[in-house]
């Protein structure tokens, strides 16, 4: 295809295609590379780019934490406790004399890792269950949707906190609790998408062409509906990170002394009148992370939504 990337605001770059060759028919058929009109390249999508930059930077910080952090995040030095920011400790030190910047950087590692990993199980379980329920309907759909309704009746954080409390603090409890609660959102999204998708002519046509249900679901429907689940996953990571930080703040999350933003806020809050940076900085880190992921989700939704293909 001779697709020229169009400058913004410029409509179709139309290529007059070769003419129809049907015997006896006037040559009128044209093929237009419409791609340049409808899809602006991803790098022109401001929201997506800013989201990618913020999220990418945070991931890099988390990955290279051992190289970036100036101090060992667990190294106590009681003689230097509660220091103001200085050239030695850019963000000061906490009550045990640990470097706040180093803890912040290492904290990104813990919070982002759990946030991203915690999304995987509910994403897979929820999309599969929701897709099957929407596609096949019947009693399976009814049962699944009643279960989903029950979960939706409770606020996300309340359920997660209760589950972690019951299962006991720790990383694996967090994964379990989040998986148990948040798959329902994916199931609901995918079911809705499938209810629409399975009525599409191309699905009917594939069915009519004798294709099996499995092939239709995987080859025809999945590529058309996955974007919605992916976009939701971005905001879900934000929710999960908030949940982890909240749990840390409540003392139900990652056990101290591991550096984690929620427990840093908890530790810092008793000095809020004198050393306000200690609680504020990890809070800001949560805000920036959420912002980055939300922008990324928005940008992706702009970029991937099927309307743009029409």
């Amino acid at each position, binding site marked *: 295809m001779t697709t020229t990337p169009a400058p913004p605001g410029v409509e179709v770059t139309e290529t007059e295609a070769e003419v129809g060759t049907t015997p006896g028919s006037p040559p009128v058929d044209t*093929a237009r590379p419409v791609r340049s009109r409808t899809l602006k390249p991803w790098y022109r999508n401001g929201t997506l780019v800013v989201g990618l930059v913020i999220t990418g930077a945070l991931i890099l910080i988390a990955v290279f934490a051992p190289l970036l952090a100036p101090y060992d995040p667990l190294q106590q030095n009681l003689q230097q406790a509660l220091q103001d920011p200085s050239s030695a400790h850019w963000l000061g030190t906490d009550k045990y004399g640990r470097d706040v910047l180093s803890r912040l950087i290492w904290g990104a590692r813990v919070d982002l890792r759990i946030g991203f990993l915690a999304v995987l199980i509910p994403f897979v379980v929820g999309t599969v269950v929701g897709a099957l329920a929407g596609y096949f309907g019947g009693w399976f759909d009814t049962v699944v949707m009643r279960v989903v309704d029950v979960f939706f009746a409770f606020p996300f954080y309340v359920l997660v906190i209760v589950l972690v409390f019951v299962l006991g603090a720790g990383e694996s409890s967090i994964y379990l609790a989040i998986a148990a609660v948040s798959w329902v959102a994916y199931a609901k999204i995918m079911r809705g998408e499938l209810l629409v998708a399975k009525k599409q002519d191309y699905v009917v046509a594939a069915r009519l062409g004798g294709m099996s249900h499995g092939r239709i679901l995987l080859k025809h429907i999945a590529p058309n509906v996955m974007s919605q689940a992916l976009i939701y996953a971005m905001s879900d990571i934000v929710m999960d990170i908030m949940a982890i930080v909240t749990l840390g703040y409540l003392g139900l999350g990652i056990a101290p002394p591991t550096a984690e933003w929620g427990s840093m806020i908890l530790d810092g809050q008793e000095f809020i009148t004198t050393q306000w940076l200690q609680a504020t900085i990890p809070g800001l880190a949560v805000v920036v992370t959420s912002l980055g992921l939300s922008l990324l989700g928005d940008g992706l939704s702009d970029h991937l939504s099927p309307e743009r293909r029409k």
Partner: protein
Amino acid sequence: MTITDLSSDADTAARGVIDPSVPLLSVQDLTLGTGTGGRRPVPIVEGVSFDVAAGERTGIVGESGSGKSLTLRAIAGLLPGGVQVQSGRISYGGTDLLTMSARRRRELMGPEIAMVFQEPMTALNPVMRVGDQIAEGPRRHLGLGRKEALDLAVQMMARTGIPDPARRARAYPHELSGGLRQRIMIAMAVSCGPKLLLCDEPTTALDVTVQLQVLKLLERLCADTGTALVFVTHDLAVVNQTCSDVDVMYAGHIVESGPVAEVFRAPKHPYTRGLLESAPDFDRPDRELVPIPGFPPNVADRGPGCPFAPRCGYVTDHCWTAMPPLAAVAPGRLAACFETDRLGDPL
């Protein structure tokens, strides 16, 4: 016919060996309607019967709501939820499609019966390359490998008059124009060499010049391969161009059927006549257009008589009380009208 007979028939049909003594497609006394069990059933299509011989091109014309599309969908096994076959038989090569298992029926769809949809945009998967979409059927039904199936797809695209098919096979539907997309749909439908092609207003979404090309293409493909065509449309001109025989439907009934040229020259039913008189004729631009007064009846409260009676200029008392049967009025011609003899001269 015993049950063993039925299953062996199905085997022959599935293998593509069809008894030449029976029509390829035979629809007998088909009644489709909504409502089962407790609710009062409302028939939407009533007592429709027609045969399509191998290689024959039949058009079904009628206005919106006449039941033409539902009839086609019943043949394809695609009735929308809430509409059921209430009685009748649809047989393909002597085998009843309605009692056939879903699995066996799926085996038929593609290599034996295929369908072209109305909207070429929505009937193609937006995220799959068109070549792969065409190749899917042959891979499934003809057992071709990935490469061979794709080669066949490119061949099919060439046969449907798509220029530069090898390059276009790699395109996504949104990169192609409406006419090309409809050609892709047709290539998809004929890729497994079906003996019966069902078309649901395949040219309605296209502009007139492209429409003509697509019709010519369909006609040529069917003539080349001996494929029978059932062509549903509301456009009389389209039937005239494409089909050899026509069934005119009104309010769920076939009211007239016969060879296209004869039906259009000398209609034997007032409705057909009304349709022709209300359509412009480019050969006689000075002819006055005569609209059909009134509206089609609501399916739920049809009287016992002829459904066209309230709009008919030839109506008599008899028409209000009895439904005229579809009867032979001339060799090869059927019409459902008591007053067919009073109808005026040929148009």
